[in-house]
C-alpha cells in the first residue's frame, strides 16, 4: 500500500514537471521575479551584495516553490484534472504530496542554479555545503507545503497567486532577507520568529560563514517540524473539496 502510494507520488511529480514547468505563471513568479530582484539589488549596490546573497537565495526558495504549487494545484482544480488523479488507486494525501514534491523539485532546480552562480561569481570561500543542504531541503518542502495549503483554499490560478503574495511579501520584509531581524523593532522581531523564512535565511547565512541569530540545529528542527504542520491542514482542506 505505502509502496503503491510512493510510486504514484513519484509519477505525479514527474508528470507535473513535464506538464507545468514551462507554464507562464511558474516562469514569471518562480524564476523571473526572484532573478529580477537579485539583479536589481546587485546593480544598486554591488559592493555589499554578498551580505544579501543568503536572503536572496531564501527568497528564491520561497517564490519558486510557491509559484509552482499555484500552477500544479490550481490549474488542475480549475480543469478538473485533479479529480482524475483522485480516481486512481492513490490516497488524497499521496496526490497532494506528489504535488508538493513537484514544487520542491522545481524550487530545488532554480535555487541550485542561483546558489551556484552566486557562489562561483562572488567567490565565497567558506560555504558549508552540509549546512546548506540541511537548510535548503526542508525549506523547499516547507514552502511547497505552504504553497499547497494556500492553493487548496481557492480554485483559480490568479486567486492563488494573489493569496500567496500576502505571506510572500510579509516574509520578505520581516524575515531578514534585506534587514537583519536583530535590527527589527521588538514587536516585528517576535512576529519574524513565527515565520518560516526567518529560519531559512538564518540557516543559509550561517552556511555562508556569517553569524546567525538562531542555532542552526534549531533552524533545521523548526523547518522539519513545519512540514507536517503545513501538509496536514492542506490535506484536510483538499479533502473538504471532495466530501
Amino acid at each position, binding site marked *: *500500500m505505502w509502496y*503503491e502510494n510512493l*510510486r*504514484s507520488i513519484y*509519477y*505525479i511529480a514527474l*508528470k507535473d514537471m*513535464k*506538464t*507545468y514547468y514551462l507554464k507562464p505563471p511558474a516562469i514569471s513568479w518562480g524564476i523571473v521575479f526572484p532573478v529580477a530582484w537579485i539583479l536589481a539589488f546587485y546593480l544598486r549596490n554591488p559592493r555589499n551584495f554578498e551580505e544579501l546573497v543568503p536572503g536572496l537565495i531564501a527568497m528564491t526558495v520561497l517564490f519558486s516553490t510557491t509559484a509552482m504549487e499555484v500552477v500544479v494545484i490550481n490549474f488542475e482544480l480549475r*480543469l*478538473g*484534472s485533479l*479529480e*482524475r*488523479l*483522485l*480516481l*486512481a*488507486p*492513490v*490516497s488524497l494525501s499521496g496526490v497532494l504530496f506528489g504535488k508538493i514534491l513537484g514544487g520542491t523539485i522545481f524550487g530545488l532546480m532554480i535555487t541550485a542554479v542561483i546558489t551556484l552562480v552566486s557562489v562561483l561569481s562572488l567567490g565565497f570561500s567558506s560555504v558549508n555545503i552540509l549546512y546548506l543542504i540541511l537548510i535548503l531541503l526542508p525549506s523547499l518542502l516547507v514552502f511547497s507545503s505552504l504553497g499547497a495549503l494556500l492553493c487548496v483554499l481557492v480554485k483559480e490560478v490568479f486567486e492563488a497567486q494573489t493569496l500567496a503574495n500576502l505571506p510572500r511579501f510579509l516574509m520578505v520584509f520581516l524575515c531578514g532577507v534585506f534587514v537583519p531581524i536583530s535590527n527589527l523593532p521588538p514587536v516585528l522581531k517576535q512576529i519574524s520568529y513565527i515565520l518560516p523564512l526567518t529560519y531559512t535565511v538564518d540557516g543559509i547565512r550561517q552556511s555562508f560563514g556569517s553569524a546567525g541569530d538562531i542555532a542552526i540545529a534549531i533552524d533545521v528542527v523548526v523547518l522539519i517540524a513545519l512540514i507536517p504542520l503545513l501538509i496536514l491542514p492542506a490535506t484536510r482542506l483538499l479533502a473538504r473539496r*471532495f*466530501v
Partner: protein
Amino acid sequence: MIKAIEVSSLGKTYDGVVAVDGISFEVEAGDVFGFLGPNGAGKTTTIRILTGLSKPTAGSARVLGYDIASEIIKAKKAFGVVPEQSNMYDELSGLENLIFMGQLYGMPRPEHRTRAEDLLKTFGLFERKDSKFATYSRGMKRALTIAAALVHKPRLLFLDEPTVGLDVVAARSLRAIIKRLKESGITVFFTTHYLEEADILCDCIALLVKGKIVAIDTPARLKAMAEEKPALEVSFKKPLTKAADELGRRLPGLAVVRVDDRIRIYGGDVDIVLNAILGYARENGTQVAAVSSLKPSLEDAFVKLTGLSPLVMAAEKGGR
C-alpha cells in the same frame, strides 16, 4: 457470483439539500446499467460516491465486492471512471496521457506502453498518438478519456453522461464502443438523460428523480408498464377529413383521434378494428396506405413513471 454494484439506502445531503435520497439497487456483473434522470436528479452524485470522490451521508455501497467506505483504494484498482468532463492533460500527447494512467495504476513499464498503443488503435487515435490532447476534437477527447479509464483493464466502467456535447456521429461511435465493452465482459454503469441512448444500450435502467429511484427494470418491462391499451395507427391514400368521427361511430367505446393525416385507435379487438378500417376505406373509395401497431416507447414509460415531460430531459445539456 459477486454483484458488480450493491447499493443500500445510500443518501447524500449537501447543506440540508438532499441530493440522493436513500436509494438501493444492484447491478449484475456483465450488464450495462443506465441511470436515467434529469439534471439535479442525483446521477452524478451517485457516481461520485461509488467512485470515492464523495462520501455518503447515509447508507452503504459495495463496488465489485469492496466496501466503498473502507476498501475504496482496492475497488479503484478494479474499476475505471469516465467523468462527464474530458479532463485529460492538455499538455501531454494522447500516448503520454495513457502511459501516465498506466503508471498511476502500477502497470509494469513495458506493458503500459503496449496497452496504451493498443487502446489508441482500438479508439482510432493511433495516427494522432503524439499530438497534444489540447489539439484533439471533442469526440477524440472523449474517446481518449474512455481509453484512459480502460488502461488498467477494469472489470467495471463508470461513465458519467458519456455522449453529452458530442455530435451525432461521435455519439453513435461511442455507443458502439459501449456495446463492445459489454461484449468483452465489462460491466458498464452509465448516467444519461438521453432516453433513446438508455433504451438502446441498457440491460437495466433506473429512473432517478429528485434523488429517488422511481422505477428500476429492463427497458422492455419499463415500457410494458406504460402500456395500457394497444393502439393502431392508420393512414389512407386519400385524406378523409371525417374519418376519425366516422370510425369513432363504427367502433363504440374506443378512443379514435386524428393526428395530422393519420388516425389513432386505442384499445379494442384488433380484428374488429381492422375490419372497420377496411370497410370504411372501401365505402369511401380509397385504400389503406399504412397501418401500424403503436408500441409504447421508453419516453412513454418515463412520462408515466416520473410525471416529467421528456422535453425537460431533451432541453438539458444541449440535448439532441
